[in-house]
C-alpha cells in the first residue's frame, strides 16, 4: 500500500495535544462505504454500544490504540450520511455529532471520513462539505483493492493535495494501511471547536443552493479527473449481472418470497429446540430453588418473579438471534435495498415508502427491532406511520397464545380433508394482521400523518459477500440492545405482576392454594372488576386476569392461566392447561371456553398492543408519550371491537 503523502500535510510531529489525554475520533462516511468494517478492524472486540441519554442516539464506541505509548483513543462509529443537509433521523444524528452540536456526544478531535475508492465522486461530496468546516480531518480511502482491480488508478498524493487533507488508502479486511491511518490521525489531532455550520445549504434560496451544489460537483469532478486514471467505466459489473435475476420483474418477487419463507421457516422451526431447552433449564432452576430454599415470599419472588421473568425474556433470544442473523446477512450482502426496491410500488399504494418494508418484515419476529429499523425512513410522518402499524405484524410472542387456543379447540380438524385447521387459522392471523396494518397505515397517512409522498431515492449498493466478522459484531450489538431494553422492562413487569398476583397473601394449605391465592389477589380482583366489560367478548374473569397480565408481554397469559386454573406453570403441563380450559364451567354449567371464545381471544391478541417493551421503544423512538399512548389506545379499541364482532357475530350465526 503506498504511503501517505507528506507534502500536503503540514509536516508536524505527533501533536502534543494527543499526548495529554485520550483522543475522541469519529468515523463518518456514506452508507455502504465500508465504515463498519474499518471500525471493527481498528477496535477489534474492544467496542460497546453507547446509549446516550435524552436523544435517540445509538452509536458504537470502541477503543483504538493509536500508538502503544499513548492513552487509547475513543472511536465513535456514526450512522452513514450522504450530506450535511440531513434528510433522515440517522443522518441528523451523524451530522450533529460531527459538528459538535450534540451535547451528549463528545466533539471529535479528529474525524476520519471513509471514502469508497470505487465511488469517489459521490463520496467526496460529503467529504468536501466536512473539509470546509475546518475541522481536523483524515480521509480513509476504503475498497482500495477493489478500485485497483477494476483498473481505477488513484493517485493518492494528488488527491490529498487537491483536497488539502491527508488521504490514507486502507483495506480493512487485510488490515492494510491501518498503521498509516493511526499516525496520520495523531498528527492532525487538535481540539475542535463547536462548528457553526448548521447546514451548508439550508438558508440559501433554491436557485443559489442548486448552483452551489453543481459547483461542488464540478470541483470534485476536476479533482478526481486529475487524480484518477480510469479505464472504461459503465460496463455491466457482477452486481448488475446478479440483479438481472434478483430484481427481474418475475423472478425478483419470486426470489423475495422464497427468501422470506426461508427466514420464517428458520425462525419458527430451527429456534424451537434451543427455545424449549432454555425453557427447561429455567423451569428446572425454579424447581431447584423452590425445593432448596425455605418457603416464603422471597423464594416466591425469586422463582415465580425473577427466574420466570428472566426465562421468559431469554426464551425469545434464539428467534431474535436468528432473525438478526438473517437481517444482518441480507443487509451486508446488499439484498435489503433490492427488497425495498421491489416492494416500493406496493408500499406506496398504502402511502408508505419502500424502505418501510424491512422494518415491517422484522416485526414478524419482534416489533422492537422492527421499530428500531425505521430510522432509515427519511420522512418523519412516514416513519411514525410505519411505527404505528408495526405491532400488527404477528410477532413470535403471539405464537404460544395461538398454539394454546388451537391445541385446546381446533386440533385434529382439517380443511379440505388434508390441511390442518390450526395451520389455516395461524395463517389467517398473519394475513389479517397485514390487512389491518395496510388499512390503518392508509387511514393514518390520509388523516393525522398527511404528507405528500416523499421521494424514493435510494442507493442500490454493490453485492458483497457478507463479512462474517461484521455480521457477528452486528448480531452481538443488536442482541445486547434487545436484552438491555426489552429484558429490563419485561423483568420489571414480571416482578410487578408476580406481586399483583401474590398480594394480599392468602394463607391456605388446601391443594388449590395457589389458585385461591390468585383469586383473592389484586390481579384476581382486577379480573373480576373488568369482567362486565369483557363479558360481551366471551371472556370470564379468569381470562380477564390473563388479559391484564398479558399487557406486560403477550405470552404471560399462559403462565397466568396456569396459575388461575391451578395447573403447574411449566410448559410440560401445557396439556393439562388445555384440559383445564376444556373442562372449565360457568356457574350455570355451560363451558367457559368454546371455539368461538378461543377465536375471539386470538383476534384480541392479534390486534391489541399488549407489550410493554414495544410501548417503551416507541416512547424512545418518537421522543414523546403522545404516540405510544395513541398506539395503545387505538389498538385496544380495535381489538375490543373486532373481538366483539367475532363473538357476537359468531353467536348470531349460530356458532358457539
Amino acid at each position, binding site marked *: 500500500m503506498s504511503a501517505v503523502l507528506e507534502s500536503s500535510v503540514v509536516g508536524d510531529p505527533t501533536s502534543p495535544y494527543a499526548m495529554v489525554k485520550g483522543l475522541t475520533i469519529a468515523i463518518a462516511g456514506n452508507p455502504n462505504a465500508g465504515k463498519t468494517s474499518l471500525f471493527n478492524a481498528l477496535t477489534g472486540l474492544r467496542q460497546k454500544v453507547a446509549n446516550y441519554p435524552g436523544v435517540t442516539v445509538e452509536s458504537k464506541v470502541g477503543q483504538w490504540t493509536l500508538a502503544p505509548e499513548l492513552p487509547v483513543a475513543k472511536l465513535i462509529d456514526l450512522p452513514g450520511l*450522504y*450530506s450535511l*443537509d440531513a*434528510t433522515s433521523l440517522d443522518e441528523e444524528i451523524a451530522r450533529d455529532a460531527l459538528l459538535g452540536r450534540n451535547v451528549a456526544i463528545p466533539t471529535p478531535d479528529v474525524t476520519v471520513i471513509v471514502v469508497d475508492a*470505487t*465511488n469517489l*465522486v*459521490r463520496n467526496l*461530496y460529503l467529504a468536501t462539505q466536512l473539509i470546509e468546516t475546518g475541522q481536523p480531518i483524515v480521509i480513509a480511502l476504503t475498497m482500495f483493492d477493489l478500485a485497483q482491480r477494476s483498473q481505477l488508478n488513484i493517485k493518492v498524493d494528488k488527491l490529498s493535495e487537491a483536497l488539502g487533507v491527508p488521504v490514507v488508502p486502507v483495506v480493512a479486511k487485510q488490515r492494510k494501511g491501518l498503521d498509516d491511518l493511526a499516525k496520520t490521525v495523531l498528527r492532525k489531532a487538535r481540539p475542535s471547536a463547536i462548528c457553526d455550520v448548521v447546514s451548508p*445549504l439550508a438558508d440559501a434560496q*433554491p436557485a443559489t*443552493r*442548486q448552483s452551489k*451544489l*453543481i459547483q461542488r*460537483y*464540478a470541483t470534485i*469532478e476536476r479533482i478526481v479527473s486529475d487524480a484518477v486514471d480510469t479505464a472504461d*467505466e*459503465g460496463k455491466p459489473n457482477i*452486481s*448488475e449481472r446478479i*440483479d438481472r435475476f434478483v*430484481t427481474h*420483474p*418475475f423472478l*425478483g*418477487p419470486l426470489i423475495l418470497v422464497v427468501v422470506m419463507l426461508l427466514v420464517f421457516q428458520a425462525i419458527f422451526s430451527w429456534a424451537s429446540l434451543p427455545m424449549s431447552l432454555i425453557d427447561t433449564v429455567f423451569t428446572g432452576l425454579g424447581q431447584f430453588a423452590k425445593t432448596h430454599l425455605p418457603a416464603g415470599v422471597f423464594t416466591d419472588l425469586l422463582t415465580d418473579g425473577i427466574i420466570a421473568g428472566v426465562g421468559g425474556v431469554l426464551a425469545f433470544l434464539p428467534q431474535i438471534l436468528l432473525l438478526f442473523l438473517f437481517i444482518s446477512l441480507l443487509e451486508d450482502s446488499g439484498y435489503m*435495498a433490492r427488497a*425495498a*426496491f*421491489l416492494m*416500493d*410500488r*406496493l408500499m*406506496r399504494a398504502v402511502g408508505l415508502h*419502500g424502505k418501510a418494508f424491512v422494518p415491517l418484515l422484522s416485526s414478524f419476529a419482534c416489533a422492537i427491532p422492527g421499530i428500531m429499523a425505521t430510522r432509515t425512513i*427519511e*420522512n418523519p410522518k412516514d416513519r411514525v406511520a410505519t411505527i404505528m402499524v408495526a405491532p400488527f405484524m404477528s410477532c413470535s410472542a403471539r405464537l404460544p397464545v395461538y398454539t394454546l387456543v388451537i391445541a385446546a379447540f381446533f386440533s385434529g380438524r382439517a380443511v379440505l380433508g388434508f390441511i390442518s385447521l390450526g395451520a389455516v387459522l395461524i395463517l389467517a392471523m398473519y394475513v389479517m394482521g397485514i390487512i389491518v396494518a395496510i388499512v390503518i397505515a392508509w387511514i393514518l397517512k390520509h388523516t393525522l400523518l398527511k404528507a405528500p*409522498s*416523499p*421521494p*424514493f*431515492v*435510494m*442507493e*442500490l*449498493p*454493490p453485492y458483497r459477500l457478507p463479512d462474517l466478522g461484521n455480521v457477528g459484531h452486528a448480531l452481538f450489538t443488536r442482541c445486547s440492545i434487545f436484552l438491555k431494553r426489552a429484558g429490563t422492562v419485561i423483568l420489571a413487569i414480571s416482578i410487578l405482576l408476580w406481586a399483583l398476583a401474590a398480594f394480599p397473601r392468602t394463607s391456605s394449605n388446601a391443594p388449590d392454594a395457589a389458585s385461591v391465592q390468585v383469586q383473592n389477589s389484586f390481579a384476581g380482583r382486577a379480573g373480576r372488576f373488568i369482567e362486565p366489560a369483557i363479558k360481551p367478548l366471551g371472556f370470564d374473569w379468569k381470562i380477564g386476569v390473563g388479559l391484564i397480565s398479558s399487557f406486560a408481554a403477550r405470552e404471560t397469559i399462559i403462565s397466568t392461566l396456569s396459575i388461575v386454573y391451578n395447573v403447574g406453570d411449566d410448559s410440560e403441563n401445557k396439556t393439562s392447561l388445555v384440559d383445564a380450559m376444556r373442562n372449565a364451567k360457568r356457574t350455570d354449567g355451560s363451558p367457559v371456553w368454546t371455539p368461538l371464545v378461543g377465536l375471539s381471544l386470538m383476534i384480541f391478541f392479534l390486534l391489541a398492543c399488549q407489550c410493554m417493551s414495544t410501548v417503551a421503544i416507541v416512547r424512545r423512538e418518537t421522543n414523546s408519550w403522545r404516540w405510544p399512548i395513541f398506539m395503545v389506545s387505538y389498538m385496544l379499541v380495535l381489538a375490543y371491537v373486532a373481538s366483539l364482532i367475532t363473538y357476537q357475530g359468531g353467536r348470531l350465526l349460530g356458532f358457539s
Partner: protein
Amino acid sequence: MTLDMIPRDVTARVASVEWTDAQGIRLMEMGVVPGARVRVVKSAPLGDPIQVCIRNYHLALRRAEAKSVTVVLE
C-alpha cells in the same frame, strides 16, 4: 426528454434537475447533476421505481422523481 422516458440500456446526459422543496435536493446530492452520464438499468416489477446507473453506482428512484430530471440522449 426526461429520465423516466428513456429506454433501458440507453445512456443519456443530465441536462437539468428541477426541484423546489428540500426533499428534492437529495437527488442532486446523490450525483444527479447536469453533465452527469446516466443509464437506465431496469424498472421494478410494477414499472416503478426505476434503477439507473450513474457515476459508477446504482440508484433507485421513482418515476415521479425521474420526471424532474431532463436528459439529452448521447
